[in-house]
């Protein structure tokens, strides 16, 4: 598992790199697409033209890897929602905590930097 960068900013270059990935996540707005993805995740990734790297991080639920390959958190969160994972769970993944630890850190006033 790689370490997350401090910040992920969806600039135009990342938008290009992550284009297929975010387009696929965006398709999950529609219930029938969610069902189709669930039925055969790999085929669905291929249909949306993901690179093999992008496909791998999706299938493995490597949430940091997705960001590194251009995913926007607002888009990859749609995959998390299908998996019934919360934003706190993802926060834990990004910061090396459990969802509970992460939620507690917020409850305690949030994480401080700088």
């Amino acid at each position, binding site marked *: 598992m790689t*370490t*997350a*960068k*401090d*910040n*992920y*900013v*969806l*600039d*135009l270059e990342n*938008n290009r790199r992550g*284009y297929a990935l*975010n*387009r696929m*996540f*965006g398709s*999950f*707005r529609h219930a029938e697409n*969610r069902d189709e993805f669930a039925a055969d995740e790999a085929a669905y990734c291929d249909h949306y033209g993901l690179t093999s790297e992008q496909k791998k991080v999706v299938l493995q639920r490597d949430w940091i890897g997705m*960001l590194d390959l251009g995913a*926007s*958190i*607002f*888009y990859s*969160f*749609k995959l998390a*929602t*299908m998996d019934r994972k919360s*934003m*706190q769970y*993802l*926060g834990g993944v*990004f*910061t090396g905590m459990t969802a509970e630890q*992460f939620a507690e*850190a*917020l*409850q305690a*006033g*949030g*994480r*401080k*930097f*700088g």
Partner: protein
Amino acid sequence: MAEVIWGLATSHVPSIGAAMDNHKTGDPYWKPLFDGYAPAREWMAGHKPDVAVVVYNDHANAVGLDLVPTFGIGTAEAYDVADEGWGQRPVPRVTGAPELSAHLVRELMDDSFDIATFNQLDVDHGLTVPLSVYCPDPGDAWPCAVVPVLVNVIQYPQPTAARCFALGQGLGRAIRSFPQDIKVAVFGTGGMSHQLAGARAGLINTEFDRMFLQAIETEPAKLAALTREDYIRQAGTEGIELIMWLVMRGALSENIRRIHDTYHVPASNTAAALALFEDLGTVSR
């Protein structure tokens, strides 16, 4: 002529809407936040606008990444509530104010703002949660019509804070030149500090938020001078949503009065706040 009667700044966290929809506002986790809203809600209930101009951003629900406009205005007669993956929120459909929308688009275009028009739009939590903050129990219909004003905050480069403040000033002029005697409220939504992704996920910067919450009233030009990078570093990659408060602030006159504010950590991953300002108008009355 139309007048701006108040401006509301408020976070638009989806879980705030979900807490209302699932009747959890009395739970220990949520009670302090909603208690903080109470005085503002009471005042607003006594000062009802005809139209709410709601400045917000879409979150991957109605705007894709193929075509990303910087500023947009909804021009429709009605807006459906978006299905964000867990079904539509159980709130009323949003009624538009297409004549006012068309007036605002025209005036802002002539005032050198390059506005995209959303002639069809499903509105997500960015717009519906602030409406619920204003009006928790709408029943069958929201108590006012709505003009959605969309700002890109997701894709870099976002508009600068200075440009957002300028847009607000143009919006205020445009509203006040609308030739119908209606009362308008302006909502600036999003924030406060939060970051969803990356090693800094969970960031909350209370000092920055407290400064912002004060300066939005007294020193908006100071906030408008901050760069994109300042907002991201200090308020988090999603805290940059605060630039939308500046659109609201710009639309108010110089003569405002703070009715109420509240600040609470956390609402999910976010520092949530509300600040309500009455607009006393450009002339004394």
